[in-house]
């Protein structure tokens, strides 16, 4: 299927495509999550040191990965906006920020819940936790900046600049466990192999894909709403079935 990328880059063309994609990713996420949770909570054995508590890793690690991954994707869309000026790029970045913030919050919260029984504390100022917290503030700052700027075009571009500047934080989070002796263990999952037991690893990977599919579905759904809101004066929006129905409902 030869995709004409430039054709797809207009909000009008992408709107129906996004709509078609959402069910696939939503169902995919649900199925993968079911498998992953079964693997994680049902099949994988107890940890030698931590007992059952470690199982929170099946939520904590995927959400942390997603929080970093989504930020980078958002920054890339920001760069595309600054480079090519396509409105859809700005809308994509706008759609990603809230989900990214949520993932970061989940990572921090599950991390705190995990930390209490294992390290004896909900919070410690180690490098990875601190930089993940900074990431949350970066997301919140982006959302606040967008709210504060009335003009959507200026908001898109300002958020793009800010997200690109903040990208420096991502390598810091990722490599912090290597650079400093911290409470966090070193990376147990590398591209070349892993030191983890197989079912644990499988569970984590499946959950990661589940989170990834969930993020895509939610971001696309939010994107559709953003497109409708920002393009509301365009003729194609007025002609949409859902908009006409809503209009009739409101008129009654």
């Amino acid at each position, binding site marked *: 299927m030869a995709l004409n990328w430039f054709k797809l880059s207009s909000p009008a063309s992408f709107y129906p495509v996004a709509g078609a994609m959402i069910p696939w990713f939503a169902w995919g996420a649900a199925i993968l999550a079911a498998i992953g949770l079964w693997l994680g909570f049902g099949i994988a054995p107890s940890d030698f040191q931590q007992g059952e508590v470690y199982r929170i890793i099946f939520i904590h690690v995927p959400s942390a990965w997603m929080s970093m991954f989504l930020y980078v994707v958002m920054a890339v869309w920001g760069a595309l906006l600054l480079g090519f000026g396509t409105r859809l790029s700005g809308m994509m970045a706008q759609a990603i920020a809230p989900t990214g913030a949520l993932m970061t919050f989940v990572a921090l919260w599950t991390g705190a819940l995990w930390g209490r029984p294992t390290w004896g504390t909900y919070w410690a100022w180690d490098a990875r936790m601190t930089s993940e917290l900074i990431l949350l503030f970066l997301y919140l700052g982006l959302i606040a900046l967008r709210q504060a700027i*009335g*003009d*959507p075009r200026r908001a898109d571009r300002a958020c793009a600049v800010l997200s690109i500047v903040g990208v420096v934080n991502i390598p810091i989070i990722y490599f912090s466990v290597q650079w400093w002796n911290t409470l966090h263990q070193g990376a147990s999952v590398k591209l070349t192999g892993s030191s983890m037991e197989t079912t644990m690893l499988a569970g984590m990977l499946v959950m990661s894909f589940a989170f990834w599919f969930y993020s895509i579905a939610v971001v696309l759904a939010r994107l559709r709403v953003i497109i409708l809101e920002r393009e*509301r*004066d365009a003729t194609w929006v007025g002609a949409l079935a859902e908009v006409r129905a809503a209009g009739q409902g409101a008129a009654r």
Partner: protein
Amino acid sequence: MLEAQNLAARRGHAELFRDVGFRVGAGDALVVTGPNGTGKTTLLRMLAGLSAPSSGEIHWNGRSVGPFSEALRGVVAYAGHLPALKDELTAEENLASLVTLSGAKAPPGDLDRALENVALSHRRHLPARVLSAGQRRRIGLARLLLARRPLWILDEPVTALDAAGAALLARMVHDHLDRGGLAVAATHQSLGLEPARVQSLALGETVA
């Protein structure tokens, strides 16, 4: 030569104007008129290279230009609503600062002469803070004289000027056009130019 085609401007969801086009050659002026809120300032800022039109194109001497284009930045002298003066600097310092910013030389002799031309010699060592609105505008006029840029973009240039100031402005624009320069001005008052050199653009009537 400054040329524009199909310019349109939007602020958020409101459309200011659409299908604006014109062509102004060396020695000619474009006068933009229209009621408040029809986008005169927005249009002038687009032509100066400060913001991008939501659609349409602008060409300078055949080359397409957009916001902050190098081609435009070297040729435009933009005089907006605000006179761009620092309160803490004297009239002379402000003038020197603005002229240097334009990339032109500002030897004291030239500064003196320019300030004389705009009748500010006796005030030149005063901080801009104590000058009247009309006097602050005149510093802007002096800057136009010294910056030596071919394209003048003037937003309500007659504001705050008294009769003598307005006459001075008209003379300056006239001489500028004689030298082969161009001017785009948003103004209600006549600049006293020969009708043959002036094109008119009335905003507020082009939006359907």
